[in-house]
């Protein structure tokens, strides 16, 4: 019974990790860009929701509706004016630039909001739970997991059912040939990064309502996101969800044995998956 409960909690935690990772997976899948600032952008999103919520008095679930388009705009500008300039055959420049961006965001947040921990307050829903008999699940973790599934489903629909999605996939396959089909890869990349930051904002909402955050915790979220993306298979969105679940379950199992083992267990699961399936659980055929 305890095992079922542990696995259920791990599954739901995996939803949060999948939300951290989905934006990273999207950007990597389309432009092979590893955004080292992704974790910090999630934290930036959390502060944006906090600010909107504080200034307007809106509930965080409503504030996110204002924050998401702003983050889309930020992503679009970031890609258009900075990242598009460094994308190319050499993977080092984008890594260096996004690493620098990570440092800038952390220090900017520190200057603007201090190092004090903050939290998004969602009200009574934070403590609400549903009793399923076998297990009792928190409403917020269930919402988090449902959001992760919805985000991955929506992104897949976008990828496989729309003209923009086909342009994403075509550009991902071959950006030079895509230009000869009338596609402007730089615009496609800017939209992709904008979307990735919308997903990061949704992740920020659930991160901020679940636990405290401060300007320094971005890199650890990036690490979980990386592990989820790599476990799932680079560029596969459903794989990213599976990767998040693997880490979440491993952490929950580790914590049930010894609370100090929670974080370590996730990393060990990551290493084990890589040893058994070096290309992840659901690798794309041509990666």
């Amino acid at each position, binding site marked *: 019974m305890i095992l079922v409960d542990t696995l259920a909690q791990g599954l739901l935690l995996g939803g949060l990790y999948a939300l951290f990772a989905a934006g990273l997976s999207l950007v990597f899948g389309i432009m092979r860009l590893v955004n080292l600032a992704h974790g910090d952008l999630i934290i930036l999103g959390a502060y944006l929701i906090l600010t909107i919520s504080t200034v307007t008095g809106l509930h965080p679930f409503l504030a996110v509706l204002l924050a998401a388009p702003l983050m889309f705009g930020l992503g679009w500008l970031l890609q258009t004016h900075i990242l598009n300039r460094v994308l190319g055959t050499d993977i080092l420049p984008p890594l260096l630039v996004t690493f620098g961006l990570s440092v800038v965001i952390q220090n900017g947040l520190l200057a603007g909001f201090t190092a004090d921990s903050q939290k998004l307050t969602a009200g009574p829903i934070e403590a609400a739970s549903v009793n399923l008999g076998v297990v009792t699940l928190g409403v917020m973790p269930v919402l988090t997991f449902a959001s992760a599934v919805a985000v991955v489903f929506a992104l897949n629909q976008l990828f496989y059912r729309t*003209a923009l999605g*086909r342009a994403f996939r075509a550009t*991902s396959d071959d950006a030079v040939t*895509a230009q*000869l089909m*009338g596609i*402007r890869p730089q615009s496609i990349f800017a939209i992709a990064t904008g979307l990735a930051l919308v997903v990061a904002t949704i992740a920020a909402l659930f991160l901020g309502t679940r636990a405290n955050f401060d300007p320094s915790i971005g890199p650890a979220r990036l690490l979980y996101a990386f592990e989820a993306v790599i476990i799932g298979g680079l560029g596969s969105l459903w794989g990213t969800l599976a990767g998040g679940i693997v880490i979440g379950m491993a952490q929950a199992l580790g914590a049930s044995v010894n609370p100090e083992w929670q974080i370590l267990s996730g990393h060990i699961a990551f290493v084990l998956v890589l040893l058994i399936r070096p290309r992840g659980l659901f690798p794309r055929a041509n990666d």
Partner: protein
Amino acid sequence: MAILSLHSVSRSFGALKVTDDVSFELNAGEALGIIGPNGAGKSTLFNLITGNIAPDAGRVFLDGRDVTRLPPMERVRAGIGRSFQIPQPFGNLSVYENLLVAARFGGELGAGEAPAFCMDILSRTGLAAVAEKPSGGLSLLQRKRLELARAMATKPRVILLDEIAGGLTDAECVELVATIRAIHANGTAIIWIEHVLHALNSVVERLMVLNFGRMLMIGAPDQVMASPEVREIYLGIEA
């Protein structure tokens, strides 16, 4: 009336001049063949026309409009379509989706009209049966057909074919030439780089010979092929 014209176009890679002062005009609806030894600068000339590389000197005009500084995607929308020597389908997309991308973005067709337009091209190029297949798993002939079909889906007024008959059997080549003839008959201007001369000469009205980046000769295929200089350089037959 010239639909495409190049004025003294040159391009070097380091010390190597791969396109050297090339000028020519392509008339609306005309089919022009380009031949020349390997390394003569044929594909580079295509890259200069599509905008994949910029010329060091000279200008490219489409319908009298200077497109020299336009990026490739805008040249496609202006009416320049291209197929590659080595087929480069989007492997993660189905055959039909490859065309849809070209039609929506290159041909600037709306969501309502693009599907029927693409299905028509697929049936005209003999690809209707494999429309839903992933393009990564096609045979060489099918991939060559897809190159042609995808270029057509961009609604080109000038279509650039880069050794599209290379590597095909004689029977496959005959099939492909029939398709190219049909495209030409519809009024689309064609520039076709090809080593398979009998295929090329059965379609084109004029032939251009490139050698070391320079245009050696341009004229009627019979006249060009009869030139002792061309026979020596291209066919290795001493005059």
